[in-house]
C-alpha cells in the first residue's frame, strides 16, 4: 500500500501531529515501506477465524457503586501547563 502525501497529511491531522509539507514525501515513503511489509498478512487465510482482542481468559470484574473519592484538586491540576481559578485553560475553542 503506497501512501501519498495527501493521505499522510490527513492521518497526521487526525493524530494532531504537525508535519511540515517538506517532510510529507519522505514520511509517506517510510510509512509505505512499513505498510508493504505488514501486508504479508494477506498471505494468511483468516476465513472463519475470530478476531482476538484479549489474551486473558477471564470475565470482566465490576466495581461496586461506591465513591472512593476524588483526587485533591491540587493534585489534579498540579502538572497543568496552564490553569486559572482551578480550571485547566487552553486556547479558545470555537464551536
Amino acid at each position, binding site marked *: 500500500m503506497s501512501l501519498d502525501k495527501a493521505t499522510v497529511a490527513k492521518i*497526521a491531522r487526525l493524530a494532531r501531529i*504537525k*508535519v511540515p509539507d517538506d517532510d510529507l514525501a519522505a514520511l509517506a515513503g517510510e510509512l509505505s515501506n512499513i505498510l508493504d511489509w505488514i501486508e504479508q498478512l494477506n498471505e494468511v487465510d483468516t476465513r472463519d477465524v*475470530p478476531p482476538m482482542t484479549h489474551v486473558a481468559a477471564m470475565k470482566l470484574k465490576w466495581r461496586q457503586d461506591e465513591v472512593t473519592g476524588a483526587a485533591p484538586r491540587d493534585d489534579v491540576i498540579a502538572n497543568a501547563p496552564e490553569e486559572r481559578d482551578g480550571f485547566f485553560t487552553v486556547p479558545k475553542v470555537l464551536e
Partner: protein
Amino acid sequence: MAGLADLTLAEARDGLRNKDFSALELAEAEITAVEAARGLNAFITETPERALAQAQRSDARLAKGEGLALDGLPLAIKDLFCTEGTLTTAASHILDGFTPRYESTVTAKLWAAGAVMLGKTNLDEFAMGSSSTQSHYGPVENPWRQAGEDRPLVPGGSSGGSAAAVAARAGLGATGTDTGGSIRQPASFCGVVGMKPTYGRCSRFGIVAFASSLDQAGPFARTVRDCAILLGAMAGYDPRDSTSADVEVPDFEAALSGDVRGLKVGIPDEYRVDGMGGEIEKLWRQGIDWLEGAGAETVEISLPHTRYALPCYYILAPAEASANLARYDGVRYGLRVPGDSIDEMYENTRAEGFGQEVKRRVLIGTYVLSAGYYDAYYLKAQRVRTLISRDFTEAFEKADVILTPTTPSAAFAVGEKMDDPIAMYLNDVFTVPASLAGLPGISLPAGLSDAGLPLGLQLIGRAFDEETVLRTAGVLEDAAAFDARPGRGVGE
C-alpha cells in the same frame, strides 16, 4: 564494603538478614555504582536521597527482626512506572516535568516489600523501540564491548536502561516492561536475566501505557533466582486493572527445584529464520543438549504462523498506541507548545513532544484504524493473532516449555539500523509471538558470540506457568555457568 554491588539479590538479602552488612551500606555501595556507570546514560533520574532514606527504614525493620521480603534491596525502576513525587518521563519530551501524585501498583508492591529505589532508568520513548536510543534523554550504552573494540553498542530496548544498569552492577535488579520483547531482548543483549510474566500477572496500573493488550511488567536481575524473587513481589491481582488476573501468586523461588527430568521441551522449527547467525544456531543446539543432559526430553513442535507475528504486532501495537498516546495533548500535564488555535496547540505540542519513532507508530496506528482500512489491517491482524495463539495452544499439548534463541543477533552498534525501521523491528522476531499469545517468557545469558558479546536463550511457558519456565531456566543457568562480565561502566 567493596563488592556489595556485586552480590546477587539473593546473596544480598541473606547478607542483610545475617547482619553481615547494613541496608545503608548496601545502598551506599549501589549509589556509588550508579554514579560510576553514568557514562552508560542508563538512568534518567537518580534518587540517592530516597534510596538512603528507604535503606534506613529497612535497617530499622531488619534490626527488629521484622525484615520484609525485599528489605533493603536496591532496585532500578524503568521510567515508565509512575512514581509518586519522582519525575516520570517515559523518556519523552512530551512528559516534561511530569511528577505523578500516585504510584504504580508494581512499584508500590516493591516498596511495601521493603525494596529501595536507586532511580528511574532510561528507555526508548514510550517503550517503542529495540535499542534504547530513541530517548529524549539520549541513548543508553551497553556496558559490553566487542572484543578489541570500543564502539558503543546498544543495550537493546525498550528497557535498555534497566538491563544496562543490572549488567553494570548498578542495582541488584530492575523493573522493565515488555510489549513485544522489551525485557527479553535487552536482557539478551546485556547478558542478564529478564522475565516477562503471563499477561495479567502484574498490574498495569500506573505504568505509562504503550499497547494495553500486550504490555506487561517484569523483572531484570543477574540470576534466575533473583528474577523469581522479584517477580514474587511484583505479581498479584489488582482490582484497579481490569486485565489483571485474579490468580494465586505461587512461591516462584520455590519452583527452582533444579529438576527437569521428564520435562518435555518444545523446539519450534519455524524459529530457524533467515539471517540468524550461526553462533545463535549453535547456542540453541547447546541449550538443547544441556536440557537433555539434565534429563529433559526435547520434542519438535510447529508454530506455523511465527513469521506473521511481527507484521501482526506492528499493526496491533501501533493501533493501541495511537489511542493510548492521545492523552498527551498539552492540556493537563507535560509539554505545551503554544498555537493560535486549540488544534494548532495540539499539533505543535505533539510534533515537538514526540520523537520520530513514536510519531511513526502513532501515524501507522491511526492509519490502520481509519475508515476504510480497519478491516484490512486491524481486524486482519486480530484474526492472525488468534492463529498465533492457537499455534501455542497446540504446541503446549506436546511440550511443557519451549526453548528458542531470544534474538537473531547479538547487540549492534549505536547508530546502526536507525534508518531502517523494519530492520530494527526484526530484533523482536523471537519475542513477539509469545507476547501476542500473552505467554510468560524468560531470557537468560547462555554464552558469548564470537565477538565476545552475550547471547540469550528464551524459554516460553504456558499461561500462568511461570514456575516451569523458571525451573527450566534455573537448570539452563547452572549448565551454562555464564560468568563473563561486561567491560564498561562497572566501576572496576
